[in-house]
Every structure is written in C-alpha cells, then in structure tokens.
C-alpha cells in the first residue's frame, strides 16, 4: 500500500495531493532558507497563526453572500489578507516601539489566533455553520478532498515555486550580506517583504494539506537540516528545497496509504526524522563529528601544556594532563617525564622560542598571526626558514621532533 502511494498508484486525487505537497515542500524549503538566514524563522509562526481570523471572516462573508463557505479559493484569499495584516502588525511593532521582534511575533500570533477562535465559535452557531471544513485547516486534512481543491493546491505549489526560483538572487544577496546589498542598490526592505510574501504564499497553499499550526515546520526544519550538510549558501538553498520536497511527497504518500494518518503531522515528522539524522550524523557539523573533534582537540591542548610544563620544570596541576601524557608514554603516572617526554618537551620549548622569533620579525608578519599555541611550526615554515630562525636563537642544533 505504501509502495503504491509512493509510486502514485492511489488514484487521481492522492497523486495530485502528493505532487502538490512535494511542490509545496520545495517552495517552503527554499523560502524558509532565506527566513532562517535572516534569523527570522519564527516570523512564519506569526504569519501562519494570523491566517485564522481571515479564514473565519471569509467563511462568514461567503455564506452571507449566499455561497458555499468552504470554497477553498475564498478561504485562501481571506487567510492571505489577514496574514498580511498580521505581518504588518509585527513590522509596525518592531519599528515603532522598543519591543523586540520575538515579543511582536508572540503578541500577533496569539491575539490574531484568539480572534480567529472567536470567529470560529460564531460560525459554529450560524445556521449554515457547516464548519467541519474549517477544522481541517488547523491541522491539515486531505481525506475526502475535492478534485478542485487538489488542483488548486498543486497549481499554488507550482506558482509559489516558480516565484521563489525567480526571486532567489536578490533574496540570497540580502540574506547573506544586507550591508553589501544595500550598497549595491538593492532595496533590502522590499526584498524582505517579498520573502515574507512568499512565506505567506507557502502558508496559504499549505493550509489545506498541512494545516496552519504545522506549516511553520516546513519553513523551518528543512533549512536548519540543510545547514548541517554545507557551509555554502546556494547549497543550503538547494538541499533545503530537496529536503522539503521529499518530506512533502513521502509524508503525503504515507498519509494516503492508511487511515488515521493525518497528512500534516506525517509530513512534519518525516521532515523531523531527516533533521535528527542530520543532527547526529552529518559530517563536520554533526554532533558525532563535533564530539570526536573536541576530544582530540582537548587532548592536543593538554599534551602541549604538559610538555611545556615539563620543559620549564614546572609542576603539572591537572590530573587529566598527566593521564594523557602517561598514555602517550611521555610521563609516568606520578608526572615524572620519561626520556621520550623530555625530548618532546625540549622540542615544544624550542618551537615556542622559534615562534617568539617569528613574532618579532616583520617578514613573518602573516605567519605570526597564525599562532594559537597548538599549530606545528613546521606546517607554516620551510626547513630553510626554520634554520634561519634557529640561527637567531642559537644553542644546541639538531632538535628533532
């Protein structure tokens, strides 16, 4: 059954939904990257919660005009308008008052959502309150979706994605170096608003599939996950889009394969699984890699400090230093150096002297700034340069590592 779903064998609607979810995921991943890099990821939370009063009002207006309150296009329009208002409120609070953006976001999302809930209770009491459709917009639901709705979502996903791809250049510029972008004549405020507008578009399109509470996840988790795999901006954008697309497609497929698997949560949890995998196992930035690197770094520091203490005939205070020296065969358990330890210590001390010479000679200025206490001097100087330096120092020749 799951295989059927993944290979798009579950019928026309399910296929459309899966494709729509994939397109939505890609747009969300790409747009979210720009929010994330601007350190404004949670603005999307305000946007998404602020859709609710719009949804409620749109329903009431459509019923009042004698139409079907559940018309998806109408609800999307209403949600877009109120989300835009919410966004303007966040902006105006942060610009005009001393409050920080996080407070503005929290205030807008809770009061707009509160207003939305009030409107929902109004709808509940309306005679034509066929309000079941609105419940679905909180958490997303694709069960019993109309063909027309699926088509709107797929089209919306495709249009959003096209817009994101079209605008990615200025958005990249502003996300990475707003100062430079401004100097280059880019209107950063306008680009920021465009980015927000795209996030809003993603939210509105995702309302029906993922629901307004969880759509934030699609804007935040893929970029955060992508960041683990690369330090380069274009790649973060690409990987994030791919991760979002995979989550959307696989999540929608899993959800369609069995009952009681709500689409929104499944898509989010698929995305989260990818995140957890990356958090631990990504090379370089992953937790495991970082832990191993820290351990080896700590060892290097303690060994070096221990050797210098030996060379300068100072006591070694830290038990860890002694343990590490002992394990390397450089000292005994009581801290007394072995022959090998004494030799390595002499080398360490001589290297320190060499660095001192490097610091004082203007010719080595660039190299001097590389000093951090650990760097092997042979890695930055040639044998000839070392010989010159040893000439300055004098003393016994031929100290070998």
């Amino acid at each position: 059954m799951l295989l059927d779903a993944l290979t798009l064998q579950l019928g026309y609607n399910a296929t459309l939904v899966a494709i729509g979810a994939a397109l939505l995921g890609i747009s969300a991943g790409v747009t979210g990257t720009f929010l994330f890099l601007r350190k404004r990821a949670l603005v999307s939370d305000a946007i998404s919660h602020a859709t609710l009063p719009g949804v409620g009002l749109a329903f009431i207006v459509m019923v009042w005009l004698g139409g079907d309150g559940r018309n998806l296009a109408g609800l999307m329009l209403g949600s877009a308008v109120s989300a835009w208002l919410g966004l303007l409120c966040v902006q105006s609070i942060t610009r005009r008052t001393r409050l920080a953006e996080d407070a503005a976001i929290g205030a807008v999302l809770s009061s707009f959502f509160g207003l939305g809930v009030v409107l929902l209770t109004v709808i509940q009491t309306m005679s034509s309150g066929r309000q079941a459709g609105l419940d679905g917009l909180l958490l997303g639901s694709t069960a019993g979706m109309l063909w027309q709705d699926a088509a709107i979502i797929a089209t919306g996903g495709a249009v959003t994605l096209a817009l994101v791809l079209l605008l990615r250049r200025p958005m990249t510029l502003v996300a990475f170096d707003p100062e430079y972008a401004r100097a280059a004549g880019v209107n950063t405020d306008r680009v920021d608003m465009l980015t927000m507008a795209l996030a809003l578009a993603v939210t509105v399109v995702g309302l029906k599939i993922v629901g307004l509470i969880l759509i934030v996840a699609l804007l935040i988790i893929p970029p955060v996950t992508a960041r683990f795999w690369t330090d380069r901006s274009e790649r973060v954008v690409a990987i994030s889009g791919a991760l979002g697309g995979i989550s959307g497609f696989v999540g929608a497929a899993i959800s369609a394969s069995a009952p009681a698997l709500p689409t929104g949560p499944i898509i989010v949890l698929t995305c989260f699984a990818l995140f957890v995998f990356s958090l631990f196992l990504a090379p370089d930035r992953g937790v495991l890699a970082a832990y191993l690197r820290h351990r080896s770094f700590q060892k290097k520091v303690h060994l070096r400090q221990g050797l210098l203490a030996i060379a300068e005939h100072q006591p070694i205070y830290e038990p860890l230093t002694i343990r590490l020296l002992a394990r390397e065969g450089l000292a005994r358990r009581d801290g007394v150096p072995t022959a090998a330890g004494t030799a390595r210590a002499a080398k360490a001390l001589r290297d320190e002297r060499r660095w001192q010479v490097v610091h004082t000679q203007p010719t080595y200025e660039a190299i001097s700034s590389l000093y951090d206490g650990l760097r092997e001097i042979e890695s930055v100087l040639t044998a000839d340069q070392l010989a010159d330096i040893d000439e300055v120092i004098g003393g016994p020749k031929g100290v070998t590592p």
Partner: protein
Amino acid sequence: MTHLELATDHGAVVQLQALDACPLAIRGLTVSYGEKPAVFSIDATVEQGSMTAIIGPNGAGKSTMLKAALGVIKPLAGTVTVYGKPLDTQRHRIAYVPQRASIDWDFPTRVIDVVLMGLYRDLGLLGRIGRKERDLAADCLDRVGMHDFADRQIGQLSGGQQQRVFLARALAQQADLYLLDEPFAGVDAATEKAIIDVLKTLKAQGKTVVAVHHDLSTVTEYFDRVFLINVRKVAEGPVENTFTSENLQQAYGGRLATTQIDDLSLTAI
C-alpha cells in the same frame, strides 16, 4: 580547579603558599571557542595593591582571560585562585565591570537601581534596602560624578556616563580586587579622567586593580604593572622593565610599526 586537586600535587603545595596573599593567581589557563584556543596556557600573578593593565592586540584573548578568571567562561584547562583560595569562596572580594557593549541598555531600570545591584551579595535574596544602602549607593555615584543622574533611566545616558555607573556599581561591591573589562573603550575624556581618578584612589586605599586596556599611549601614565598577552603570555611585570619595545613587538608582531613602539617605550623610560 579545587584546592584539593592542587594539594595532591607535591610540587604545587610550595607554589601555593608562595601565592597565598596574591589577589589573583592563574595557572595553565586555556580557553577555546570552538577548535582554536583564544588564550593558551596562561600563568599570571597579580600583585597586592597593584594596578595592572592587560594589553595585547585585538583578538589576543584579553577579555577572555579576564572572564575565565571570573568563571564567566568555562576554561578548557587551568586553575584560578583568589587570595590563595578557590574563586567561589572569594567572590565577595571581587568587583567586576563588564564591557559596556555586552548589555541591553534598554532594560527598564534607573541608575540608582543599577548601583544597588552591586550590594546583592550583602543583601541576599530578600534583605531590605534601607537608608544605609541608599546612602552608600548615592555615595558611590558621587565618587564617579553621577550623583545628579540617580533617577535617570540607564538608556538615556551617554556611553561615558554608562561606564561611570558601572564603576559606581563595582564600588558599591566594596571589594578588594577590581576587574575591569575595557573601562575606557568609547568614553569621553572627562569620563576617562574620572575613572582613572577613582581607580587611583582605590589603589591608594590598598585595593588591587586589573583592567583590560587597549590604549598603549596611556599605559605608563595609568598603570604600574602590565601583562602582555597574545594568545600566550608574552611578559608580565612592572611597567618600567616590561613595557619595552621588544615585548611589544613580541605581542603585537608586525601589527604595530616599529616607530610607534619606539615612541611608546621611550615614554616608558
């Protein structure tokens, strides 16, 4: 970092006794941000009653060293003793002036309230702020020439005034050892004068002062000891024989032109 650890090492016991009266002793301090040491294997001994400047180029680990000495940053290795005892037992004897830039100056509080924060260790959680405490805080503000600003919101002060308020808060701590992080950074001339006067008064009272300092031209005028650092310790000692062109060259490398260094060390002699 505890006493116990030190005492188990035979070599260290002797050393410790020699340091007993020393306000601040740092041994083998290494601090790293990520995989690059910011300070590496530093030993420092601050002398009782001295005024010590910590100097070195940008990114040399000056502030890091001070913060690690206070336990504000966790070091990778090393021990810190204050008056011969572990840091945590001696906190009441230390006053600290952090960098002005690290603070949210929009915080809703008045100048006098900031100074009263310096009395936290005396007041504890619920001790009442009475007449005595208010008088002390007012007196501390007076000593830095900020008496008239007591009821101002801190965000309304100029940079120099903010720095003076921080110094007043440190004075309110009534400590023996004063640690200041770049107290003269971005302040006006009047403030610089006011601060140095207060610090010199403290020294005259037998207190010990350590300051991270970045203006080489005032070192000889303001301080009697220097600690030169560039990731590792370059030198420490009295200004006369430590603030020399060789040591400066050693600490600043090519980043300081030779002529500048000659000028500076000439004023030192």
